[in-house]
């Protein structure tokens, strides 16, 4: 009886990755600590005065979110590539795009979601008006999955290389700019009480676009990298 259930495979990959993340807790916590530390650098470097921090807060939080996602991206395929399980995944009847989607969801749950939970605290650090906090969470909720999806392409392209880290940021950061521009601006606009629906719609559009195209590109890149 030959029956292959896609959802069973998707859930299997997802739960295995979450289990692995739990077992290697340090790899999960480090990017979050990095996120908090980077944000605390700015008041020390620029000035503790509320007026100054308030204008910079949205940009600082979003740039820190970008960098911490970049830090945790490497983990998505690197260990699987080294111990051969990436080859098993690509050889299994499960289509590679589904494998990538499962991996990206696991990465987002472990790295993107915690950013969402800590961001309000950092908003308070940087004197972000409380009116802007909901928008901050909304933009992070829409933006961080895009960071994981587009990041997956970069990781898939560099997984075969020995020192992929620096190259990964060069490949991925230019592609992150639209998310950064619209998200940071949305938070700043809501801090001034302006309407932010336009920016959020754009972020939603980016999310849909990357949901549909990024797995294809990442799957093709994986096939080439393990060549």
């Amino acid at each position: 009886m030959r029956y292959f259930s896609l959802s069973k495979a998707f859930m299997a990959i997802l739960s295995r990755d979450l289990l692995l993340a739990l077992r290697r807790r340090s790899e999960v916590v480090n990017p979050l600590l990095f996120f908090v530390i980077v944000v605390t650098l700015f008041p020390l470097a620029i000035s503790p005065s509320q007026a100054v921090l308030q204008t910079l807060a949205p940009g600082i939080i979003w740039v820190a979110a970008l960098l911490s996602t970049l830090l945790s991206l490497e983990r998505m395929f690197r260990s699987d590539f080294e111990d051969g399980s990436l080859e098993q995944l690509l050889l299994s009847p499960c289509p590679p795009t589904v494998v990538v989607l499962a991996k990206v969801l696991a990465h987002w749950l472990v790295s993107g979601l915690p950013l969402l939970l800590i961001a309000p605290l950092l908003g308070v650090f940087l004197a972000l008006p409380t009116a802007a906090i909901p928008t901050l969470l909304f933009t992070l909720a829409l933006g961080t999955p895009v960071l994981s999806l587009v990041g997956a392409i970069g990781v898939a392209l560099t997984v075969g290389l020995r020192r992929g880290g620096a190259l990964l940021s060069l490949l991925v950061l230019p592609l992150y700019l639209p998310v950064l521009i619209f998200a940071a601006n949305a938070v700043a606009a809501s801090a001034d009480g302006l309407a932010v629906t336009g920016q959020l719609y754009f972020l939603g559009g980016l999310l849909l676009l990357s949901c549909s195209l990024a797995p294809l590109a990442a799957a093709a890149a994986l096939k080439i990298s393990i060549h």
Partner: protein
Amino acid sequence: MLRTIDLGCERGDRILFSGLNLQLNAGEILQIHGANGCGKTTLLRTLCGLTRPATGKIFWQDLDIRDDESTFSEDVIHIGHHDGIKHELSAAENLHFALALSATTPEFDVTQALAHFGLTAQTHLPAYVLSAGQRRRVALSRLLLNNARLWVLDEPFTALDKDSIGVMEDMLHQHASKGGCVVITSHHSIPLAPDIHRELQLGT
């Protein structure tokens, strides 16, 4: 079952071999010999579809493996140099994961597969505790959890102790007798009946 036409492979820009015409019928085991670096591993990775051949085509049951990768991937299992075992997970968890990804419901379940290789005691130990030989046996027990008809095994006997080698040889016999095919590279001389045992010498 497995047929290649004018198959050629490259590594970097070095041509490993070309014009290879293979024919492997049901129930046959093909053992590939050759010096190190003559392209044995590359050939195996090409046969199972991981690597793209430089020239030529590969047919599994008269269908080009490049055309419908999904049905071919349900019928092939590849065990390479890397075991494909996550060190943080236990042997049982690794095998349950492999089972979830395989297309069929085999007659063995995880505990029986591990018992077959004498790993019952290590079922719930994290893989990094196991020795290389034990990890290899966990990887090989994946063969029991899958009804794939084509086995592509790269040096399966390395790091195995004597009785595990015996277990592995029996598995090869059973698989061949059930009409499956095996492509295997090994410096170990496998005691097989001549009618089902094919040899291929690679390299100059």
